[in-house]
């Protein structure tokens, strides 16, 4: 799982970085690297079985009052 993950990251870097580097697109390279770093960290955290916060829990906590209200109102 870990090695597979790093292997995929390496492939992604090999595909994307050389053309960006050649064209000297600095900003694009930054955006690419930060996203990739974020994805890699999350992936590693998952492979090592750390607990990653679930974005759907945030959605639930935001919309729970509305949903409960509608449930009562449209009963």
């Amino acid at each position, binding site marked *: 799982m870990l090695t597979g993950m790093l292997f995929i990251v390496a492939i*992604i870097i090999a595909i994307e970085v050389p053309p960006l580097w050649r064209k000297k*697109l600095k900003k694009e390279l930054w*955006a690419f690297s930060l*996203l990739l770093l974020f994805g890699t960290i999350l992936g590693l955290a998952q492979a090592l079985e750390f607990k990653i916060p679930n974005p759907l829990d945030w959605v639930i906590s935001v919309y729970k009052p*509305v949903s409960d209200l509608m449930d009562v109102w*449209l009963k």
Partner: protein
Amino acid sequence: MPENVKISIRQFTVLVMLITIGDSILVLPSIAAFEAKQDVWISGLIGLAVGLLAVYIFSMVGKLYPHLTLVQSIQEIFGKWFGTFVSLMFLFYTFLSVVAHTRETGDFVTSVMMQETPTQAIQILFVCIVIMAVRLGLEVIARTGEIFLPWIIFFFLILVILLSPQAEFEKLQPILENGIKPVLHGSLSCIAFPFMELVVFLMIFPYVNQPQQIRKGFLQGVLLGGIVLIIIITVSILVLGPDHTARSMYPTYSLARRVTVGRFFERVEAMLALMWTLTIFMKVTLYFYIFNLGLAQLLKLKGYRMLTLPVGLLLIVLTPVISPSITYFNKVISKYWPYFDLTYGLLLPLLLLAVYFVRTKFKRSTN
């Protein structure tokens, strides 16, 4: 952003229709029938009516700045800081949609067709194709839609025609057994899932080559897609009955299993699975394209293609995270997701229109 692509109005209409059908064709009957029972077809009609109205509002928003995508016009209307914040929230919404739909695909394939295969394997393959399509660009996605459409309509017609002998109209009775309220409750998901999610089309308005016909094409696509959905919802109730429809996770799939013609034409469910895979593929691809395009425009990058692979990685990593179990996921989708959709599909366009008109009025009065 030098994204010089153009799609024709016909391709736009086809895309709208396919994305309206999207994943709804498989899951909507069950979610809506849970609340509305045998009256779910009324919920579907309400959903279509509100959906057409919503699309009319979208096209109004699109006309404010015909040359800007949604992310750009949000920044134009709300100003730099608040605009960036709203754009980020919108991108978060599209990304979460992509993750949820990918998860749905994996869940569907592993739970009904390939039980032994790990969900992640299917999701990785699926995301690879999606990334490939998105890297090829909007024109290719639109043409793919045109190729898929006849097949989807063909499979849909075969399914409906072969099921029609099994329809029992008694299952629709009693109409409005518990009053109008459960029907309205059921219509909430009928409004949100197929129609509110079309708000992402505001991101590709500038790429349509005949902007003055967008409203007409948009309404046509929604109407056709909505009719397909209402027919499938009604057929689910007529053949399976309200209880079975509400209880099963994929009622349309159970429907297809019922098809049998003289004991030699059976197992049509594979055809349905193929049709659904095509429509959800179009939906995920368009959402993924829009997320990458929006992010690139927000960061003012030259092109979006370098973002696709890292975002795809993030997508694969997040799919197991968002749903520890299938019950949790289904509960979120049926209970909370409609409001999430409504926030971006209804609240955001209305807010954009209101702020735009207040600002132009204010400017005129100071002059």
